[in-house]
Structures are given as structure tokens and as C-alpha cells.
């Protein structure tokens, strides 16, 4: 990795430069919150955002996408092309950069998903540092830092960004569009100070000790019944989660009923029908069993395959869940045996 100092005042120039080559997506304000959206001007970019309503996965794995178009009469695929739009996702926090690495394990591992892969291959990632808010707990999983998974990462050191550059493309773009300068020892010291402030600012304390053991050993604990009583079964947690990758597929016909689209949409293990099979048996009929499965899979099922938990501590589900079911609380319940 190599580094550059990029003055903050040069960011609009960088964005303008990127926009001449790419579709630039970044955090913009919406109704008092923020969303990742295409930028129509560099000034719209809000690198001071706290979090976005939906995570960055939307730009690789859209909430609804056509996998293929088909004809009904002869059961034939007439189009299954992928989206190769050149994009830059500008302004991802470390949690969101890390979340994409977790999604990659699923979508780019065995049997790679061509739709996800095409978008991933054609999208540059520019990360930006942040300060934790009251819902953040990325430090619990070590996803508060990111050392790969981006082309450029901008760490705020006051007037300037301390930019880590990870890819050839990132280096070329920085060279082309910003003046910048090499780093000095003072800059690195500022970066370290800033990192220390960041680490000290977390207010959530999540005890992640031995979660896989606890999930199995306390599988029959009544904490799940208590959480199930609260759960609205609405799936909001899955929708806003940057690491939830479950999906459903259904066919939608044109009004003439001759052709149609096979469409993939985000799904949630919290929906009642999620684990129901054709003959009517539902393997997770109760809300309690579904809440439990969500945590069991994230903290153990995924871990058993990829050696990481399937959570980056972004706090979006904490905000979204009206029933106040969230990882810090559930982990606390697992540790203590009590739902507080």
C-alpha cells in the first residue's frame, strides 16, 4: 500500500474527475438521513454522513433485479446480460467496505454469481474514515479497520485526508485528478492520533467471547422466546443489513403473458414463509425460531464456512428495529441469559 496526502478542498476536483469516467455514487442527504445515490454535483457528496438508510450492497446486489428475460411458450431464455456500468462508490465507511468482502465470500466463491461479479468488477471503492455514533459496534468484530477491499481509503486528519491507495486504478486516478503530496512522519502521527480518538469514541461494549459455543449451548434458552415475543417479523433488519444476502426469485410476466422476467429480490429469514417447503412443512414456524436462526447463522453458520462473523457492527439494524432487537442486546442476552 502507498499513501498520499489529499487536501479536503481537492475532493470536489477528484469527484469531478471520476465523474468524467464513471457513474459516481456517494452518500447524499435525504429527509434528515443519508442514502447512497448517484451524485449530480460534487457538492451533494456528504462525507460527514453518519450512516445510510440502505447499505452499499444495493449497488452490487440490487433489492430487485432481473436475472433473465424469457418466453413462456417455448420456455427459452432470451436475455441474461449483466450490468457492466462503470461505477465509483465514494465514501464507504470501514464497516461497509468490510461488508462487501463478506458478501464476496458468498457471491464470488464457489459457483460465482455473474450478476454480482459484473458489478463488483466494474466498481471502484473509495472509503472514508468516520467517528462512531451510539449505535456503532464495528470494533466488536474488528471491522472498524479495513486494509483491503478498496481502491482508495481517505482517513480524516483535519484539513487533509491521509489516503491509502490499494489498487493500480486508485493510484492512477489520484495521480490524474488531485495534486496531493507524499506523506510525512507528522502526517502519520496525525493519522495515529485520529485512530486513537476513533477507537476511544465507541460507547457500545459487546462481549463477543465464545459466541459459537453459547449459540449451541444455549440453543434452548428462553431468551429466544422472549425475543420472539418482541419481534415484528417485518424483516427490516435484513433489508438494512450490509451482510444479509438471502434472496427470493420469482417470475413476472408482461401483460401479454408471452414474455416475462425472472426477478431476484432481497429476502429475510425473519419472514414466516422463508423455510417453508412445498408440501407445507415450515422448519421455522415461530418468530422465536427465526430470530434465533438469524443470529445463529450470522455468528456461527457463516463463521463455520468463512471464519468471520456475518456482521460488521454498522448499527443499521439497531436503528431499523422498532422492537429493539439488535446484536449488542442479543449478544448480551446470550452472555447473561437475560433479555434486558
Amino acid at each position: 500500500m502507498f499513501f498520499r496526502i489529499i487536501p479536503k478542498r481537492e475532493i470536489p476536483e477528484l469527484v469531478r474527475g471520476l465523474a468524467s469516467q464513471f457513474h459516481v455514487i456517494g452518500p447524499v442527504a435525504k429527509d434528515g438521513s443519508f442514502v447512497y445515490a448517484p451524485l449530480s454535483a460534487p457538492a451533494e457528496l456528504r462525507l460527514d454522513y453518519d450512516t445510510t438508510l440502505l447499505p452499499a450492497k444495493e449497488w452490487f446486489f440490487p433489492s430487485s433485479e432481473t436475472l433473465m428475460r424469457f418466453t413462456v411458450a417455448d420456455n427459452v431464455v432470451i436475455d441474461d446480460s449483466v450490468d457492466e456500468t462503470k461505477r465509483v462508490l465514494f465514501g464507504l465507511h470501514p464497516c461497509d467496505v468490510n461488508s462487501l468482502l463478506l458478501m464476496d465470500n458468498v457471491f464470488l466463491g464457489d459457483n460465482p454469481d455473474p450478476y454480482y461479479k459484473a458489478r463488483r468488477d466494474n466498481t471502484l471503492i473509495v472509503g472514508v474514515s468516520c467517528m462512531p455514533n451510539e449505535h456503532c459496534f464495528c470494533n466488536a468484530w474488528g471491522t472498524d479497520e479495513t486494509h483491503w477491499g478498496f481502491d482508495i481509503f481517505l482517513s480524516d486528519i483535519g484539513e487533509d485526508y491521509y489516503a491509502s491507495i490499494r489498487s493500480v486504478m486508485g493510484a492512477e486516478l489520484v495521480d490524474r485528478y488531485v495534486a496531493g503530496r507524499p506523506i510525512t512522519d507528522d502526517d502519520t502521527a496525525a493519522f495515529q492520533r485520529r485512530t486513537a480518538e476513533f477507537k476511544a469514541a465507541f460507547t457500545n461494549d459487546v462481549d463477543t467471547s465464545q459466541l459459537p459455543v453459547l449459540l449451541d449451548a444455549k440453543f434452548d434458552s428462553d431468551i429466544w422466546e422472549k425475543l420472539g415475543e418482541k419481534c415484528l417479523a417485518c424483516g427490516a433488519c435484513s433489508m438494512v443489513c450490509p451482510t444479509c444476502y438471502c434472496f427470493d426469485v420469482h417470475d413476472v410476466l408482461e401483460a401479454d403473458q408471452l414474455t416475462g422476467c425472472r426477478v431476484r429480490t432481497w429476502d429475510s429469514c425473519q419472514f414466516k414463509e422463508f423455510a417453508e417447503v412445498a408440501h407445507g412443512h415450515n422448519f421455522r414456524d415461530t418468530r422465536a425460531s427465526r430470530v434465533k436462526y438469524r443470529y445463529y447463522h450470522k455468528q456461527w453458520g457463516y463463521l463455520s464456512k468463512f471464519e468471520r462473523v456475518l456482521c460488521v457492527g454498522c448499527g443499521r439494524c439497531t436503528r431499523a428495529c422498532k422492537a429493539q432487537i439488535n446484536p449488542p442486546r442479543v449478544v448480551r442476552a446470550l452472555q447473561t441469559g437475560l433479555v434486558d
Partner: protein
Amino acid sequence: MTTHLSAAPIVVNPYRPSPARITSIIDLTPMEKLFEFRLIGDAAREAFDFQAGQFVELSIFGVGEAPISISSAPSKQGFIELCVRNSGDVTGALHSKKCGDIVGLRGPFGRGFPFQEMKGHDILLVAGGLGIAPLKSLINHIHDDRHDFGKVTILYGSRTPADILFRAQFDMWRHRDDFDLILSVDQPDETWDGAVGLVTKLFDTIDVDPKGTYGAICGPPVMYKYVIAEMRKKAMDADHIYVSFERRMKCGIGKCGHCGVGHQYACIDGPVFNYWEAMNLQEAI
């Protein structure tokens, strides 16, 4: 700002079904039919290499996809047999198809029975209801390599005599001495001269060499626990008892999440697990 929209066709798309022609349809019961398919194109047919216990995604555009286990034996190449109950939109649509119609197939998916490992051993197969469908593949595969196996016992329980699948074949097999086939029904009718009661009751009538036998079980979710208990009573090893699970395999490639069982996915880690593995899957049995 500039937008560069572009699109490209996909070379390898695991979600894209391959066209397959229905070459035979046999009515088994009012609810179940046996379909034979041939993939269209020599390359597709040759590439389709499967194990007993694996499944395919059956695709009917406009309606959707459904996971169906393969009933034909890997030893018979060139066609794929699926025993399908009319129980949902896709299977319902398939039931209304006729010979010559084209549907889509994806697969084969999942982990099947460890056929090579089972060789040289006695085999005890236990099926309940539609659970005979994947076991039929294994039975036929064993049949085609019969000299590689010891004693082969098949216990097959159905609700009523009319619900027995592949009955014509099994009626013939009842008199073979290289397969011990015992059929049982919960509700007999006046024509029934076989065993009556749950399939677990049949264990009293069979002898099992505990260390020399591999078990294979497939049936309704409620059945596993009891059949495994019987096999354990016969002192069979946990890792010699294989179960095939039905779950909602939607994508078949470990992505969509619907077939999660414990910490694994039935579509890539299963649907066939040995009992030791299954014991370690929460809520599996």
C-alpha cells in the same frame, strides 16, 4: 455527470436453466407422476454427471423453480428421471405438461450418497412416502453394481397401498432374493397382504450386521428421529447412517439462504448428511 451503461451476455450462468424435453410421463398415483427428461444438446447431456441423492432445480418460466431429487441412477446416462408430487405451483404446472414439452433444468446440485464408500457393505434403505424418490436412484445404482454390495434391505412405508410409489417395480422385486424388500402401509385395504404400521416396526423383523452396514434414510421430517433410533438400537455407527433432507433449496448453489439447516446449507453441504453431521445441525432432526 456521465453514465456509462453497458451490458454483456453471461458465459457461465448458474441461474440459467438448460432446456430439457419431457420424453416420458408415467402416472404413479393420483398425486405423483414419474417424468423422464432429456437435456437438449449432446454437450449438455454429457456434462450432466450426477450422484444418487443429488437434486435438480426444475424450471418452468412464468411459474418458477422447484428443487426435485433425481430418481434415476447415475449408471444410466442420457436421461434424468424425476418423481414429482403435485404440491405447488411449479410441480402443478409440470403435471399439466405432456410428452415433448420443454422445461428447464439446473444442476445437479448438492452432495449425494457416498456410493464408493458404501461399496463392500450391507445396505439398509429406509423410505417413507415420497422419500423413496431419491433412494430410488441409489437402489437402482446399487442394482447396476449389485456384486459390489452385500445384503441389501429396503424398508418402505406408505400411508395406504394406493400411495406406494414405483409399485409395479417393487411388486416384482418382492420375489427377488438379492434385495430384501419390505413394504408397509399405515392404513391397509382389503387387498393388502403386506406389513401394517410404521416403517420403524419393520426393524423387529430384520437382522443387521452393525459394523458392516450403511444406512440411508429419506422421508417426511417427523420420520428421521425414529428410524435413526432403530438403527442405533441395531448398533450401527452414526457416520454410517445417511439421511437426505428436504429443505427449500431455491438457488441450489449456497447463496439464497432458504435451505439453511443448523450452520449449513442443505443445497451444498447436503442434502445428504451422515447422522454424526446431522446431530451437529441444530433443528435438523
